């Protein structure tokens, strides 16, 4: 008898404990927030924009052949004095519980960024649902709201579109940086390194780009693109670096994996393109007579991608000259980036941290005035070593013969 009672009681207990339904949430009760946007309202409050996945339309659209279903994402907005307040307030509009574990993107309006990031990320860091690996971008020339509202053709969810564009662009081109909430918090909370964040812009008609009709055309009415690096100083956006100079930033931060360097050859501009396949950067700091200096050493390996001048690539001497030209081009990019940062007096390269790591005692004396009196006058020595490993499937370009170049073995 005793045995039977014990068995029944333990089975019942298992039923209660193992079911794990204490604070259960059904899938149909959750609103999956894929991206969060931040803007300021006119009265200085935060406006949060939520891009919520519309599950039926994401899965359904592919089955139906795409395009014919509803929109894949839905936008909700809420204002509040802080993020948590705004987030709770959305419950007045969303029929489900906001769920942040899949939030992969944070879009910050340029206006908010100029006023300062300050404690913006605290709520994201404190919340256990939110991931520090979410990506951050700055909405350039537009509000975060506009960026999140644009519908995109290939990756239906525009947050995914932005994330993948950033990831692959960093990998293949290297003018934008793929930076996470955790990285930014680390930069903001430590001395001697200021954050840089990539920008996202819109080309085309913003108003039309929000409609489903836009992505039914082969060229949508509005497209999202990533461009430029926002420089921050004391948590405030102070300026943008564009084009090749922004690649200079990524060279120093050792973020370049692959890219393409175009260099001139004997008077002809942009004649040869060099595909970088591998690259490594090391930064070292030195202090001499109380004056800090930094040396950046970049090593790249790559192939020749395109040649528009008659150049005999069989000739190692020519390759050696080409190598020097490429090295000069990379060095120019880096120095250009350093100049831009010095102008704004913000150490986006983390040179200060390098100094701290090598000279902790000296750093304590200069840390306070680093941005104002040391960094703008810092001596930065850049040394580039580029190796051209292969020349692709051809050695001499076909214009070599056209323009009367002589083949070596005929000599």
């Amino acid at each position, binding site marked *: 008898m005793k045995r039977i009672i014990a068995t029944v009681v333990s089975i019942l207990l298992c039923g209660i*404990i193992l079911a794990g339904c*204490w*604070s259960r949430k059904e899938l149909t009760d959750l609103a999956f927030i894929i991206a969060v946007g931040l803007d300021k309202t006119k009265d200085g409050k935060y406006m949060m924009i939520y891009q919520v996945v519309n599950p039926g339309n994401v899965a359904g659209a592919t089955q139906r052949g795409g395009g014919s279903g509803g929109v894949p994402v839905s936008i909700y907005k809420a204002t509040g004095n802080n993020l948590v307040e705004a987030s709770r307030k959305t419950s007045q509009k969303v029929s489900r519980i906001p769920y942040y*574990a899949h939030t992969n993107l944070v879009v910050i309006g340029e206006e908010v960024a100029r006023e300062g990031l300050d404690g913006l990320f605290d709520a994201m860091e404190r919340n*256990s649902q939110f*991931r*520090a*690996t979410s990506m951050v971008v700055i909405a350039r020339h537009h509000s975060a709201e506009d960026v999140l509202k644009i519908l995109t053709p290939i990756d239906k969810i525009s947050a995914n579109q932005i994330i993948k564009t950033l990831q692959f662009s960093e990998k293949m081109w290297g003018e934008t940086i793929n930076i996470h909430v*955790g990285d930014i*918090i*680390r930069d903001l*909370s*430590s001395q001697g390194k200021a954050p840089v964040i990539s920008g996202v812009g819109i080309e085309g008609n913003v108003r039309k780009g929000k409609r489903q009709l836009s992505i039914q055309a082969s060229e949508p009415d509005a497209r999202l693109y990533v461009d430029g690096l926002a420089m921050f100083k004391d948590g405030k956006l102070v300026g943008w670096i564009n084009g090749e100079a922004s690649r200079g930033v990524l060279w120093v931060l050792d973020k370049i994996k692959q890219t393409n360097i175009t260099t001139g050859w004997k008077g002809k501009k942009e004649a040869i393109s060099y595909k970088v396949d591998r690259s490594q950067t090391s930064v070292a700091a030195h202090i001499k007579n109380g004056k800090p200096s930094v040396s950046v050493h970049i090593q790249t390996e790559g192939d020749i991608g395109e040649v528009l001048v008659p150049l005999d690539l069989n000739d190692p001497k020519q390759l050696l000259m080409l190598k020097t030209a490429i090295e000069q081009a990379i060095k120019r990019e880096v120095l250009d980036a350093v100049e831009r940062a010095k102008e704004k007096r913000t150490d986006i390269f983390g040179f200060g941290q390098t100094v*701290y*790591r*090598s000279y*902790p005692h000296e750093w304590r004396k200069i840390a306070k005035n680093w941005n104002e009196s040391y960094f703008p006058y810092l001596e930065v020595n850049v040394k580039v070593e580029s190796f051209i490993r292969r020349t692709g499937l051809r050695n001499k370009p076909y214009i070599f013969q056209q323009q009367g170049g002589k083949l070596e073995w005929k000599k």
Partner: protein
Amino acid sequence: MEKVKISARQLFVLIILFEHGSALVIPLGVRAKQDVWLAILLGMVGGILLFLVYYRLYRYYPDIPLTSYVQHIIGPWFGKALAFVYTVYFLFLASRVLRDFGELLLTFAYPETPLFSLNAIMILTVMYGVYKGIEVLARTGELFLTFLYVLAIGGFILVISAGLVHLYNLEPVLADGWKPVWKVVFTETLYVPFGEMIVFAMIFPYLNNPEKAKQATIIGMGLSGINLAITMAINVAVLGPELVSRSTFPLLDTIRNIQVANFLERLDVFFMIALIIGGFFKISLFFYAGVVGASELFGVQNHHRLIYSLGFIVLLLSVAIADNYSEHIKEGLRIVTVYLHLPLQVIIPICLLVIAAIRHRYFNQQS
């Protein structure tokens, strides 16, 4: 005392699980910033020296636990009082670890569940384990240790292959000299988890081969110390010293940063399993020591009868101990360390050893 024996290997397993217990997941010694690994290793060395004190005492009285031999050393009256203090100390630590465990789960996984119910489920499991006895705990430990190691190695490989480890975060070494490191050693890492080895003074008598106790314990402590130091060093290398010092659970943050091949991510469950396994063994060992101590002290023949009542006390204490997590941590760092760990782990055992040594020499001369 139970009539069971454990082998040196099982002791080794229990030590590893006990030392990793909560130390793996809490921000252990993070006030030493990037030198935290040094602080842990130095704490380990100090802990091994302390263990040699406990070991000497054990060799003087190889058949009885700490709470009994104190009565032999300083006489029945003071001895009983001190044994009582140690029993309460073990039960108190059991409830502190239980609270740690509940708070950790609550903060990151079950925000809406009351602390009491989580702690109740854990203490029920612990009570069952202790009811079954030390031998069963040790054998369970052997099983779980393998599992924990597989997880740990898997996690380690993932962290490395995700390219998260930035060794420059560990520089500069000793930026502010040795002083802050020593401070952390003597206020934190020496006591938790290494000085807490005092609890094994209640377990050693069960060993079937006392000769091997020293070797097994020192290897166990050394391995745990190295593991903990590596884990904290990786935390710092991944997150940076600044974030580690602000984080409630650095290991969790490190694991959450893992992103490999677009699908190996959000491995929070690694952390959860480490937490539950380690927490279970740490609470069990403290609780077991408390129960055995109490049954010796009050002459209860069958220690099983104390498990229910003491388990309930530990559960209530774990909830009542502090109003909030910050208070709990502050108590642990300021009050418990100075007023409990320091005297009960360091001062009293050393005094006991001195007295016991004098007694034995005197006794030997007489005979």
